């Protein structure tokens, strides 16, 4: 496209972001500040993820963008179109074909490989922000690995509700060192973070932070010995493809209580339905 640099951002900005990414990869789970730019979409729509994607995209990359698992929602469609226009890269909806996958709120059901990079859009990178109002103090807590307060939150949930009541953005310990927000993915997806072959990059545009989980990194969801982490899944099968292991969305179909469960990962679901599963 005329008038734009490849993938929209200028080369100096991409260079700055790549440096932040390199540092983030070197310290798994640690939030690295970066000079977040104004992007042509509002905060909360993936300004962090889009900057990370722009900085790592090459001419031969194949890009997939998903929003809540779906390829056909507004956010996914517009970001995919944005990079098709500004970088001219090939885009796809097939998880296996993509080399870079930008995601909001899900990890694809299809297992990712070492040849792929997963870029998360992160609204709030600080896992302690509901517990500790001061950023200075929460940075100190990260520095000294003082994470007792996070377990107090889990303790409170169990004593009030009998179980940990965090269904998304479930905090994890990365590489046994940094408490990290996995972005608002469902807790169901947390086990996929652990020892994932693909590089995982997290970009928070408004909060100006980048962090990373390198391939094959140990990622543990916080829990108690006698209340182990249990990912939650709706007790149903997908109405379209019949999957009984995937993460399901509940869809209302009329105003008389009609509802159905379908896979939130549209590519996975379409692949299974097409194969006659």
């Amino acid at each position, binding site marked *: 496209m005329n008038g734009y640099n490849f993938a929209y951002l200028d080369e100096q900005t991409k260079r700055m972001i790549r440096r932040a990414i390199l540092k983030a990869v070197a310290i798994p789970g640690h939030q690295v500040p970066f000079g977040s730019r104004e992007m042509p979409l509002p905060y909360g729509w993936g300004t962090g993820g889009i900057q990370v994607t722009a900085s790592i995209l090459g001419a031969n990359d194949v890009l997939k963008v998903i929003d809540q698992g779906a390829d056909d929602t507004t956010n996914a469609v517009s970001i995919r179109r944005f990079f098709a226009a500004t970088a001219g890269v090939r885009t796809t909806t097939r998880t296996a074909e993509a080399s870079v996958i930008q995601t909001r709120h899900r990890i694809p059901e299809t297992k990712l490989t070492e040849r792929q990079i997963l870029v998360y859009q992160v609204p709030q990178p600080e896992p302690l922000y509901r517990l500790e109002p001061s950023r200075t103090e929460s940075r100190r807590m990260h*520095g000294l690995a003082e994470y007792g307060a996070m377990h107090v939150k889990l303790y409170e949930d169990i004593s009030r509700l009998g179980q940990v009541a965090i269904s998304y953005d479930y905090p994890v310990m990365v590489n046994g060192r940094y408490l990290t927000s996995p972005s608002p993915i469902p807790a169901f997806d947390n086990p996929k973070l652990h020892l994932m072959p693909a590089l995982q990059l997290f970009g928070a545009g408004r909060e100006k932070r980048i962090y990373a989980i390198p391939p094959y990194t140990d990622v543990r969801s916080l829990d108690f010995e006698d209340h182990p982490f249990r990912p939650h899944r709706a007790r149903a099968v997908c109405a379209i493809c019949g999957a009984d292991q995937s993460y399901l969305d509940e869809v209302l179909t009329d105003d008389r209580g009609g509802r159905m469960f379908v896979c939130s990962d549209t590519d996975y679901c379409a692949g299974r339905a097409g194969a006659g599963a």
Partner: protein
Amino acid sequence: MSAPALLAARGLSLRYGAIAALDGVAIDLWPGEVLAVVGESGSGKTSLLNVLSGRLRPDAGVVWYRDPTGALHDVHAMAAPALRLLHRSDWGFVHQDPRANLRMGVSAGGNIGERLMAAGARHYGAIRAEAGAWLERVEIDPARIDDLPRVFSGGMLQRLQVARTLVTHPRLVFMDEPTGGLDVSVQARLLDLIRRLVARYAIAVVLVTHDLAVARLLAQRIVVMRGGAVVETGLTDQVLEDPQHPYTQLLVSSVLQA
């Protein structure tokens, strides 16, 4: 004394502008001993407590702490992580205002369990059982383990703070006017409780108070401060029965006789 001191301070000085908050203060504290620091407002008691606990850096002087292995540490030369670790394991701090120490939005059990979890406890059942046992030890009904501190009375809050502080079995606890702001009968109950727990777990305490009755009840030794300097020190009974320094004599004689 023959046993080595747990905490020793030498030549502590601290000035706020022209005012000397501490002026060449030296203090020794032995394991399991309760030491009361008394004096009027502005005499430097709280400054001394903050300096001893490493929360405030003195202009001059040194504070030594002997850890369980017998090694000596200069409290103000310790790295921040080591000092913070000390504060949440070996040491405790009881504030005058329990709200400064408690998490008001977290249940009583969570408040007590926090120090255990910070120390690495990861078994929910064990943490809860320990929290319940400590509620009982500070005379709060264990059935209230899931209540929020905001529904507790002032005396209960203070006892909850004591439980939260002692749950990790610290060797040394700093107390800043623990009975301040409580009415007399509640004070008596709290003092009785603190005395029992401190004796049972052999905890050394530096107790700051302006109330000589509190010092008499809890402390074995007493330090009288005035204008940032120690004017008299000795066994509690000895100092209170036979005060030598004119200021101590004034303090003792100003206590109202009921």
